[in-house]
């Protein structure tokens, strides 16, 4: 049984035991030190989480880069920290099939996130609870970049399948007031629209500092009717995740081990300036008028730890967080209809770039698989550059993908551009924001009825190469 974490703290202990967490014990300034460490940790191979014990002017600690390396990612899954990306992809897929695993609902007195309660709105001060800081220089304020946010469907408030646990950027705008970015194609926007049509508030819980797989699933693009907590249990290899009822809303459930839970509501039909914010494509998204949340109730653990992530030019922590959790759901959704698909690598900028390997059943099959990607909820708007390769090409091995492109593609028939499609508005090449063209490169080998006039025979490795690979590795390790 893989190791399972019900809160952030137990995972931080595992990271530390494995040499994947460093502590900065000296006092640091909120700006620019915390963000600088996030960038630095991402620059280091197998970069560790960085825990700041003392931040000037604040009582509590902050940790960054918790998901920011393949080693940390493997430890999150309870795997050895040397597990390869491809091994982790296949392990997540194996566990994915366990969905749904019902969460365990704890009593209030059993839940660590309820250790302390602030029940009067006037007593709430986010700056006392969280060592807030500016992440990128031109950000419009201090942001929560890694919170897991819980909302329900206003038309079916008790439908647990439609309970949404998602990650949306949060700009702090006052002691108990924050802004939120809800893009039109995000699940929360469906719920927001239903409430705003009736001029109703949207009850919301913002949870900060969670077990690593809660954060992971909150940023995973699953279907609207799939509950994220039930996926956390699946990815914990069948061990349910622990949740507890919100204090204010009986139909909302929060992770029982959260460091901080902020409860309140989205103000209906109100928009005010939010941003800029340095976003995952490695550039700023500008100021726009976006939603506002009032926080009226808080619970938190004693000495809460603020977990936040740095975003910079890829790769930084967010790229590790959104790499396989974008690839796996897309793979699962496509292979349901096309079992020929072998693997999906959607690790590039949250799936804007995507490589799919597939067996080819008939001529044009590669393009058909690409169209299927473009008809998934996430791929439809995010995916822009789609490369399809044969089943014998490993989509996680970029030199092999380049080989497929250089030897399989005839640009006049294998490269297609589809104009005027949905696009990811934070992609700076999307114009108008939210619209884009799609590029499909079919690098698969032609199959009947498509002619293949110069059919070739692939080179095979010489007999006994595995033996020599092992021998050479052994000799190298002895040098």
């Amino acid at each position, binding site marked *: 049984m893989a190791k399972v974490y019900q809160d952030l703290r137990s995972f931080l202990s595992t990271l530390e035991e494995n040499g994947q967490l460093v502590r900065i014990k000296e006092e640091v*300034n*909120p*700006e620019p030190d915390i963000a600088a460490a996030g960038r630095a940790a991402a620059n280091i191979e197998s970069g560790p989480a960085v825990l700041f014990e003392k931040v*000037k*002017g*604040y*009582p509590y600690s902050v940790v960054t880069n918790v998901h920011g390396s393949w080693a940390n990612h493997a430890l999150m899954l309870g795997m050895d920290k040397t597990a390869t990306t491809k091994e982790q992809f296949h392990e997540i897929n194996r566990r994915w099939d366990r969905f749904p695993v019902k969460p365990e609902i704890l009593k209030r007195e059993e839940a660590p996130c309820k250790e302390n309660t602030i029940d009067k709105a006037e007593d709430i*001060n986010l*700056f*006392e609870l969280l060592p807030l800081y*500016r992440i990128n220089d*031109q950000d*419009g*304020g*201090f942001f929560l970049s890694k919170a897991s946010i819980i909302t329900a469907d206003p038309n079916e408030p008790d439908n647990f399948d439609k309970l949404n646990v998602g990650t949306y950027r949060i*700009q*702090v*705008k*006052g*002691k108990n007031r924050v*802004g939120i*970015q*809800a*893009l*039109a194609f995000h699940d929360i*926007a469906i719920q*927001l*629209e239903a409430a*705003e*049509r*009736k*001029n109703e508030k949207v009850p919301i819980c913002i949870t900060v500092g969670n077990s690593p797989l809660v954060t992971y699933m909150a940023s995973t693009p699953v279907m609207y009717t799939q509950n994220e907590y039930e996926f956390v249990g699946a990815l914990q290899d069948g061990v349910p995740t622990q949740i507890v009822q919100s204090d204010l809303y009986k139909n909302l459930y929060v992770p029982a081990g959260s460091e901080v839970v902020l409860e309140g509501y989205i103000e209906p*039909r109100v*928009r*005010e*300036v*939010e941003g*800029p914010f340095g976003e995952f494509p490695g550039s*700023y998204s*500008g*100021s*726009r*008028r*976006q939603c506002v949340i009032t926080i009226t109730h808080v619970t938190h653990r004693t000495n809460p730890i603020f977990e936040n992530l740095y975003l910079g030019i890829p790769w930084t922590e967010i790229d590790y967080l959104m790499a396989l959790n974008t690839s796996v759901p897309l793979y699962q959704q496509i292979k349901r209809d096309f079992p020929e698909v072998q693997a999906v690598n959607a690790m590039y900028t949250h799936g804007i770039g995507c490589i799919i390997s597939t067996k080819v059943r008939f001529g044009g099959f590669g393009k058909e698989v690409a169209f299927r990607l473009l008809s998934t909820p996430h791929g439809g708007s995010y995916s822009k550059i789609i490369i399809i390769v044969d089943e014998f090409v490993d989509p996680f091995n970029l030199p092999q993908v380049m080989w497929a492109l250089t030897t399989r593609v005839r640009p006049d028939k294998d490269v297609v551009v589809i104009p005027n499609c949905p696009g990811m508005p934070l992609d700076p090449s999307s114009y108008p*924001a939210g619209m884009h063209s799609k590029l499909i490169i079919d690098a698969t080998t032609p199959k009947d009825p498509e002619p293949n006039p110069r059919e070739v025979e692939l080179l095979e490795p010489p007999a006994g190469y595995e033996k020599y690979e092992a021998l050479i590795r052994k000799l190298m390790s002895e040098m």
Partner: protein
Amino acid sequence: MKCPRCDGNKIEVIATSPVGNVWEVYECMDCFYSWRSTETPHIHDKFKLKKEQIDTLQVIPPIPPLDK
């Protein structure tokens, strides 16, 4: 005090450091830019806002019509 982004003059102190008296956080009530007293904001021209721009910024997500 003026907002470094929109030159607005409705500036509020939204926080003082919970430990020691080492910083304050200010916020512009027109454009909601916020900064700490220990920072020296230098807003790039691209991100500056004029008051008349604020009302015409894109609305995300769009506000739907009310149900009848």
